[in-house]
């Protein structure tokens, strides 16, 4: 059985004086124990809201969450706040994008790590401090004894992110959700953090949900990749399949629009035309249709269904035939 089963997860935000906004629209995915699953998409595609909904971190007022999130046999969406608090940090760990704003600026790093250990594992403070030191050591923070008594602002961005990973992994959760953990970091630091996460996840057997906008990060890390667009999963496949033969025009277009380090120079990029602002609602067809080079008439009238095609899920009326180059589009 899957460790995490997300079924038909929908998050609708109520807005004063405006139409409600559907940020996540019927998202399904499974995470097997020890597996790394990627959620990829551009800003506004609902990837972060999905993670917040799973963790129960969305405001009670204003956000309407439907569907189901089953973790190890328990329905998370039905848990009370108190029950959820017992799980968060113990069974489910989370690493956020900006390490400075997710650490408490007025509490030393050491206390922020021991807090989790005391709360969930009932350790006395002294014992927890020793464990915290080991944790900081494990995530590669040099001189952990001194770092325990320091404040977040005294650490560099990369070190802060390491501290945050130490906190998230303090109770050896079975599932770790990482929301753009390296976006705020420089490339060389990003490489350090990614290799650290890969190592820890393998050592501890933790399942990882990796949320990112960077297809490069996904290519090196994830087993299965979900590509989100406009709040829906438009394509889901194992990473080798997905990158070798992208079928959804959005995935295909995304890959064609990234300058690649190993590509010959002078090759022109093929951008996706328009921007997310051009989307049409899913009820009227495919949200991507106005930007899609493959759009047919049916795309603006019938919502494409999620279809299983040889182990990959695809939501498209007119998928890309493998091997075709990206359509040359004049930017609007």
């Amino acid at each position: 059985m899957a460790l995490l089963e997300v079924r038909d997860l929908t998050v609708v935000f109520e807005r004063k004086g405006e139409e409600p906004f559907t940020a996540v629209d019927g998202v399904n995915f499974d995470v097997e124990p020890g597996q790394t699953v990627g959620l990829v998409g551009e800003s506004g595609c609902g990837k972060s809201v999905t993670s917040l909904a799973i963790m129960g971190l969305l405001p009670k007022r204003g956000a309407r969450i439907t569907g189901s999130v089953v973790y190890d046999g328990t329905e998370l969406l039905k848990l009370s706040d108190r029950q959820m608090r017992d799980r968060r940090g113990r069974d489910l760990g989370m690493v956020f994008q900006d390490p400075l704003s997710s650490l408490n600026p007025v509490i030393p790093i050491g206390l922020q790590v021991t807090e989790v250990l005391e709360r969930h594992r009932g350790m006395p403070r002294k014992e927890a401090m020793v464990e915290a030191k080991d944790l900081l050591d494990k995530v590669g923070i040099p001189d952990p004894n001194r770092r325990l008594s320091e404040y977040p602002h005294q650490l560099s961005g990369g070190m802060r992110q390491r501290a945050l990973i130490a906190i998230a992994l303090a109770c050896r959760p079975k599932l770790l959700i990482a929301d753009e953990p390296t976006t705020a970091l420089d490339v060389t630091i990003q490489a350090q953090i990614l290799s650290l996460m890969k190592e820890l996840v393998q050592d501890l057997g933790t399942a990882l949900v990796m949320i990112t906008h960077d297809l490069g990060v996904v290519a090196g890390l994830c087993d299965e990749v979900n590509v989100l667009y406009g709040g829906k999963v438009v394509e889901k496949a194992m990473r080798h399949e997905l990158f070798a033969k992208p079928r959804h025009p959005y995935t295909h277009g995304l890959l064609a629009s990234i300058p690649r380090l190993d590509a010959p120079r002078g090759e022109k990029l093929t951008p996706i035309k328009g921007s997310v602002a051009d989307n049409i609602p899913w009820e009227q067809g495919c949200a991507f249709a106005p930007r899609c080079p493959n759009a047919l008439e049916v795309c603006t009238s019938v919502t494409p269904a999620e279809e299983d095609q040889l182990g990959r899920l695809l939501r498209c009326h007119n998928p890309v035939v493998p091997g075709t180059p990206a359509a040359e589009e004049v930017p609007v």
Partner: protein
Amino acid sequence: MSETLVSVEDMKVHFPIKRGVFLDRTVGYVYAVDGVDLEIKRGETYGLVGESGCGKSTLGRAMLRLNEPTNGRMVFDGTDVSSLKGEELRRMRRRMQMVFQDPLSSLDPRQSVESILVEGLRAHDLDKSKEQTGKRLRELLSAVGLPSTALRKYPHEFSGGQRQRIGIARALALEPDLIVADEPVSALDVSVQAQVVNLLQELQDQFGLTFLVIAHDLAVVKHISDRVGVMYLGGLVEEATADDLYAEPLHPYTRALLSAIPVPDPQVEDRRERILLAGDLPSPANPPSGCRFHTRCPWRQASKCDTDRPVLREIKPGHKVACHWAEDIEAGVIKPHEVAPILIEETDTMSPDVPLVGPASVTEALNP
């Protein structure tokens, strides 16, 4: 084509660190740019890459004298810009324009697009008659791919990519020779990035512009630049044509940087060798002695590295590198070794170079 448009000689920008309430004692300097020489030829795109805090943006700004350089000269088309003052400098600026990273904060929210574009024309007396200006504005907008109806709109009515197009149109309005683009695409989504990258290339072909593109994304820089300079802690460590730099990086830092960039291809990702650098970037207020990179360098040698600062020297035609041991490293005589990370005291907060992609909060997600 090979005519030099810009040459920078021994450029230094040091920012004083002040302490005290009444007497502003200077307690030290941040060596943001510390001795850079570079040349940009007319019609080429020069890419400047490096991580946050390496001084690449400061160098770009100092070249336009938006920051006053502490030392060094910048010669632009035969004129020494660093000695110009007042009106002369102002007139010179028409020929050097800048495109900024964040298109929203670099456009006045209360100015319409028309007024944003006309402002520069007025300042340089290019706003002769109404018809002529109107024609020029429509030309500009069509050059950057915006409809002429955009003139009456305000920056908030556009998407990120379109705003960056307005910023580019503003830079183009004065028919400059040089455009300095500081992280022109890093605030944009990937699918939109490609649009702006292509636009920059088209404009260069169309108007024969010279670009200095400053970015942290080596893949983007490699894609659009003819030559690339890699910066580390205030100095250039390597300079080569884009293809050479990728094919045979000579400086250890460039090697590490190239190997750290994720490639969206699982087959490449599984095979490639990573050079992981230990620790963080040292503080530019207290740079390491000798070679700035020696504290993190896996190829560091016992002599020279921590005492002599290597100069940028040409070891192959068109390929310059600032490393004492570049030849030996390339020949494989020196093998990489383990490096223990060194504690870096963090003084400042987050770097402004790295964009935070994605909505920062639920409210932002609701009102993009």
